[in-house]
């Protein structure tokens, strides 16, 4: 009887080692340090102490920014908020000012609002907020799953907006979605790539540096980044190809973007209201995207909504008397295809040139 039962479930028993191995590899190698809870705090400390940081791959920038703000001594004069597109804005843009770049990769509207709320709650509001908006802010289907939920909820309360919470929202609120990566085959692929480095104990982990002459991507103490040399040294042909591929391959944040979501518009406008009410001055920089990408997207039946996004935001900013620099359309702000690292990331010189046009 017992033998028959064992024979019956043997194939399932034999499958178990595969899943154990799969999960073990992800947990032990853990190339992004998902299970190393303290790494964001450590990075924040290094940055606040004036060091640059390298090898900060797949770290949670939201937590780093929050930790930095909480540990910060003295308010910054200027805060910059946006996505990775805005992360190249550094102190040299604003001489003699104490700046903190609070931008983070793939930042969504929720991130901007939550990070602002962190500043508000920590009583670290700056004199000026420089907002670098993105195209996907009003796409209801590009909602962020990773933002700082508590701060966002608090901000929504301040803005007097009632939220519709879905089951998925509740799940990701209580279980950090990053932990699901432990079950992800994509993470397994990454872990296997790092296997040789793990065996010899040389997995690149975040590290503080004093001098920035390195080939790696560096986060600087002002929160800005210097891209890795492989990105900085791309040929123009590679950049053009990246620009085309980005636009032709249905950009992630723009999928299902049929309308500017009314709820998100309301949130955005109320956010500007509370920033104004807090006495923080706002300026806006529309960082352009590569002219070829913009051309392809704006001619596409679905993605031409990007034109409406800028129109709408300009109208709102104008109603709040907020100065606006630049445009998503590179041709409208004196940029050309040599001003980009890829489809969406403009070079710092391009942004400096945009700002100089208005001075």
């Amino acid at each position: 009887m017992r033998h028959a039962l064992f024979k019956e479930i043997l194939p399932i028993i034999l499958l178990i080692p595969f899943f154990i191995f799969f999960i073990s590899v992800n947990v032990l190698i853990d190339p992004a340090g998902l299970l190393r809870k303290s790494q964001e705090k450590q990075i924040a400390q290094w940055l606040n102490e004036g060091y640059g940081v390298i090898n900060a791959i797949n770290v949670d920038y939201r937590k780093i920014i929050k930790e930095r703000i909480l540990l910060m001594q003295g308010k910054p004069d200027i805060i910059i908020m946006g996505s990775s597109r805005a992360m190249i804005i550094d102190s040299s843009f604003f001489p003699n000012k104490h700046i903190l770049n609070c931008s983070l990769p793939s930042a969504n509207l929720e991130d901007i609002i939550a990070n602002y709320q962190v500043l508000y709650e920590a009583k670290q509001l700056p004199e000026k907020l420089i907002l670098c908006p993105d195209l996907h802010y009003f796409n209801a289907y590009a909602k962020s799953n990773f933002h700082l939920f508590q701060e966002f909820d608090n901000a929504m309360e301040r803005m007097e907006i009632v939220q519709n919470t879905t089951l998925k929202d509740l799940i990701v609120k209580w279980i950090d979605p990053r932990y699901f990566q432990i079950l992800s085959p994509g993470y397994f692929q990454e872990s296997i790539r790092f296997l040789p480095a793990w065996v010899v104990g040389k997995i690149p982990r975040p590290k503080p540096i004093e001098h920035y002459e390195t080939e790696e991507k560096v986060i600087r103490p002002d929160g800005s980044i210097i891209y890795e040399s492989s990105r900085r040294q791309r040929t123009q042909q590679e950049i053009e190809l990246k620009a085309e591929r980005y636009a032709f391959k249905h950009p992630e944040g723009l999928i299902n973007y049929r309308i500017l979501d009314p709820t998100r518009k309301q949130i955005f406008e109320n956010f500007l209201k509370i920033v104004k009410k807090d006495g923080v001055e706002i300026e806006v920089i529309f960082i352009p995207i590569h002219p070829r990408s913009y051309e392809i997207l704006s001619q596409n039946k679905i993605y031409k909504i990007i034109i409406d996004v800028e129109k709408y935001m300009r109208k709102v900013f104008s109603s709040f008397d907020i100065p606006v620099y630049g445009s998503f359309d590179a041709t409208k702000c004196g940029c050309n295809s040599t001003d980009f690292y890829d489809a969406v990331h403009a070079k710092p010189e391009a942004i400096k040139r945009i700002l100089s046009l208005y001075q």
Partner: protein
Amino acid sequence: MLFNSVHFAIFFPIVVTLYFLLPHKFRWILLLIASYYFYMAWIPIYVLLLFASTIVDYISGLLLGKTETEYKRKLILLCSLIVNLGILFTFKYYNFFMDSIEKLSISLNIPINMHYSSLLLPIGISFYTFQTLAYTIDVYKRKIKPEKHFGIFALYVTFFPQLVAGPIERADTLIPQLKQSHDFNIKRVSDGLKLMAWGLFKKVVVADRLGMMSAYVFANPQSHQGPGLLFAMIFSSWQIYCDFSGYSDIAVGSAKILGINLIQNFERPYFSRSFPELWRRWHISLMNWFRDYVFYPLGGSRYGTLNTCRNLIIVFTLSGLWHGANWTYIFWGFLMGVCLVLSLLTRDIRKIIIEKIGLTHFPKIHQGIQMLMTYSIFLFFGVPFRAEKIGDVFYIWSHLLTGWTNPTRGLDFDDFVVSLGMPTEQEFNTAIVSLLFLIVVEAFQSYGISLREKLEQRNMVLRWTCYYIFLFLIAFYGVWNSSPFIYFQF
């Protein structure tokens, strides 16, 4: 919820475990809750459409069962058709209709500004609408009795393995299985898991990798010449097949684990020796639906050649429209219908020519040529299925023979494949190797040799070593960015 997501990897084992732990009488409740959860993982509010469709067809079925008067029965059927097709039209075809009117008005110099809808296409709407329509029509035709148990009927409409991309199941095969008690059977579970793994391989290793190139070239055909366009056409044809048949395999496999047999949706269609055969082996459940509910009511092949040809063209044009609200799909369906008609009309002539040139003496070569011809026709006339505009279709067709004197346009081969949308040459090589592996396995199957069954006869160590290697290959070479299945949009 996607079959190739972590979400499903957690969801499915929980459902299966609870399913076999629960007594039979509660299992339908579990499956119904699981199915609704599965659907709600995308846009929860759209579950209301699913529910509306369920209610309408459940009530229609009950009323049809009680009503004997013919005109009243017709009225009930008509109401069900209007509601179901009305929902489908509103969500899937409204914008296409408005856009076509607007373009027509512009071309006639009387421009009208149409109002467009911002509603998103609910996932799987075409599948579950056709499934529920089949039920109501079958009850109307008295082929089946109406299902009185609302829960079981709701489960028939929403059964999660086949809810969003089929196979489109008939009530007389699925409902009795949903009512039966299924014990845990390791052979069935093991077969189901193998089928799921094979489907996952087709989807994440083959389809999604081939899709990197085909999506890029088809979005921008004007930047490419003959070699690039041909590569994209071939990759696209296999991508669509692997994507959809991979989904079907996972659907059939997961239902099998639960003890429920779904229809096999694909039977190696690219190994078909004629166009009609290809369409008997491609998306079988949809083709059966069109055969039973459109082709036969139109008269089928009963009223002469001309009527048969007309009916075939109507059926295939409609199937094109079913696939998507775009003129490219309608054009594709029409062309498939025309090819099928031509294939039937030229059957005798082709037979004579083949006998005259003596090809019948070399049956293997003959079969090979037939397969190649069938695939080539499907490939060439399949362009509208992937093209974004009709103009792109003609561009691709007219430029297929260009650029062959310098196929890589002066680039190194690795730069050439990158210029076609592949991230690296290594990805391209992986795509080719995995595709060849799939073709070899299917070639064996088409000669009646199942490599899986052969493997099952081997000793345990060898067998499990192969299973493990296969699982690692899927995990390591899969494209795990959770690309939606192409057929979700239909």
